[in-house]
């Protein structure tokens, strides 16, 4: 089969060079995910069908529902419904709280992404150097992934609790005025750490797999040429696992955007004063706690737009620098 590149997590990175694909890329002018070539249309459609059905049921129908709800004002029980055109969107965009939430989400996703990828890279690099007890070391790092987000959140909230948390005692002892109940920045850091901690293992396991597939011959050749471990990592391994890193950046972003809800709920409830009110948590609060379905639906639609826009941007500008062909 001709290699059709995808962000397949299982097969990241380097296979032997595939000259044909390079030609397609330059000829068709398509960047990033390149088109696959099939002669006839029926088989691929048939193969896609199950997945499309799942998407229809769990994505397109709910999305359409959200879209239709975002234009109405309705009471919780649905007995009075008023069509209000773009009022829900207008009042959202006019609300300082919602704009603040966009800002928080932006910084949170960015910080979480950077922290996660950097820490897991360091850990993966270090694992490569460990000879004894490597399996044990790996299992330890993978453990957080098995913990439910809410539990992870409560764990962090407790450890850093101003009144009883052991770590906050240490911080206070060092003269740091740590108080996530009052200082927005502390709460923000806490949520970022907790969310990253939970996700580092995910990135880590992909990076480990990717590093394993870096051809040892290249590394050995570099070693013979006198490159130290760090240099080999930066100059050879890192570029070779580029596609994996790009994949992980996209995944981290999706994770930060949509899946960190439980951690925020357990650690800060979006407080203090909205300092950790990320968009997805606001959707939940307005929709499921306050049952303001119109506004909540409008927020979901806006989130969908943001997520789509950011993903497109990532593929356009970040993936340009990823080399699949090494």
């Amino acid at each position, binding site marked *: 089969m001709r290699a059709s590149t995808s962000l397949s997590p299982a097969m990241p990175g380097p296979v032997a060079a595939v000259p044909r694909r390079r030609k397609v890329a330059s000829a068709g002018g398509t960047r990033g995910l390149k088109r696959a070539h099939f002669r006839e249309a029926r088989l691929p459609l048939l193969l896609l069908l199950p997945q499309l059905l799942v998407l229809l049921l769990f994505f397109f129908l709910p999305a359409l529902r959200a879209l239709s709800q975002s234009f109405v004002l309705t009471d919780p029980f649905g007995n009075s419904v008023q069509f209000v055109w773009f009022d829900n969107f207008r009042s959202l965009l006019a609300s300082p709280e919602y704009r603040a939430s966009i800002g928080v989400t932006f910084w949170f996703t960015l910080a979480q992404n950077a922290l996660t990828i950097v820490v897991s890279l360091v850990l993966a690099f270090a694992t490569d150097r460990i000879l004894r007890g490597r399996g044990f070391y790996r299992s330890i790092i993978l453990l957080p992934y098995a913990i439910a987000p809410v539990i992870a959140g409560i764990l962090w909230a407790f450890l850093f609790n101003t*009144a009883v948390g052991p770590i906050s005692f240490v911080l206070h002892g060092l003269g740091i005025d740590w108080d996530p109940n*009052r200082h927005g920045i502390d709460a923000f850091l806490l949520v970022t750490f907790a969310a990253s901690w939970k996700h580092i293992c995910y990135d880590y396991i992909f990076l480990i797999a990717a590093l394993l597939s870096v051809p040892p011959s290249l590394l050995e050749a570099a070693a013979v040429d006198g490159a130290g471990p760090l240099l080999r990592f930066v100059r050879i391994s890192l570029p070779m696992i580029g596609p994996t890193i790009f994949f992980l950046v996209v995944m981290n972003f999706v994770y930060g955007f949509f899946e960190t809800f439980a951690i925020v709920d357990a650690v800060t409830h979006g407080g203090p004063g909205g300092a950790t009110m990320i968009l997805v948590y606001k959707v939940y609060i307005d929709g499921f706690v306050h049952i303001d379905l119109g506004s909540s639906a409008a927020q979901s639609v806006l989130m969908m737009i943001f997520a789509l826009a950011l993903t497109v941007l990532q593929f356009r500008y970040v993936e340009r620098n990823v080399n699949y062909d090494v």
Partner: protein
Amino acid sequence: MNLTKRSMFAGLAATGIAAGSGGAPALAQQRVEIQFWHAMSGVLGERVGEIVKRFNDSQTKYTVVATNKGNYDEVINATVAAYRAKKAPQIVQIYERGFMAMLLSGAIVPVQDLMTEKKKQVDFSDFIKPVASYYQYKGKLMSMPFNSSTPILFYNKEQFEKAGFSAPADTWAEFEKQLYAIKSKGIAECGSSLAGDYFWSLMENYSTVNDQPWGTKSNGYDGLDTEFVYNKTRLVQQVARLQKWVNDGIIQIAGQGLSPQQLFTSGKCATYFASTAAHGGIEREPTIKWSATYLPHEADLTACNSSIGGATLWVMKGHKSEEYDGAAAFLEFLAKPDLQVWWHQVTGYVPTSNTAYRMAKEQGYYKEHPTREIAILQLNRGTPTPNSQGFHFGNYTQATFALREEMESVFANKKTPQQGLDDAVRRGNELLRQFEKLNAGKY
């Protein structure tokens, strides 16, 4: 299906035998099932289970099935979802903040109408005033009072005595001095522990006790075009005081992962403003010597009644007549004074009727448990004014959420008390207008 039916009959037969003293065992007629969703978990949930069991054993026509659907927010959500799927329970427990949403939902049957129609004996004039006034609309009770509470002030007796005070002072100014003294003398690490529902105990109830308006139109009783005005009352001073306390470490915010009550029961903080229903939990902690008293008031203002919190039972629309017979029978059972007295004593909630209160008093209950009487005395104090009868605001959970967010900014010194309250009022008023638009002409 078959199996469930059979086991139900078996259960019925068993009850028949157990209850059958003398008379023939009850015929295995089809019992009508009444679904009852509630938000009481833990010990409270067990108590609800006991009530339901007592009711089911007391007659043979109806079976009430009680289900805990999570906390108050989750119960109202589950109800909304079930109603939309046409599977709503007959009876559901909804918190006081959901009053307007339920009232104007078009999804409920007013309780007083139901009870009159089904000819049930409930003395609606016997409910204590702040309870009745909260859940009344046009002179009729819309839902059945069930668990009602009001905030009181719990304090650590030893710590107050050590500081040379016999009890907390009546007025905020004096009380503040006491807390600063306790902290500066090193008797307790903090003067007070900030409860999660402080917006209710220290803000809303501050306004009712001191007869300050929360909104126009008699706190929303006289129209949907009400507006919040608590940024123009003495509440601003109260919030400034709270901000100062937080800054000076007089009041401790527990934060996520820690219960504020623990800070009090462990002796770390000297006082705790909380619902009288906290009695149950505090009594179980033997570590400290505690007592309780009334909420403080402003020295230059006469103290009014405090207002209630808690929940009532709503009857949902769309069920069969015999199911409503059962629901009415269950609600009548709940309103009986002896059951009220029992509920009051095992949970710490206030008795909702004057008769139940009198019965508890005649039993000598308050001689043994003096702090259990504070809540009801405080609720019955004086004559309720338009500012102290309750809060009838639409979208009130959302407005409260906005207020809490703004208060967090105040506690973080990001906003002054005035700015914080102004912003909360602005956000709250937007929600009120939205509610007014949606429900125009319905109230």
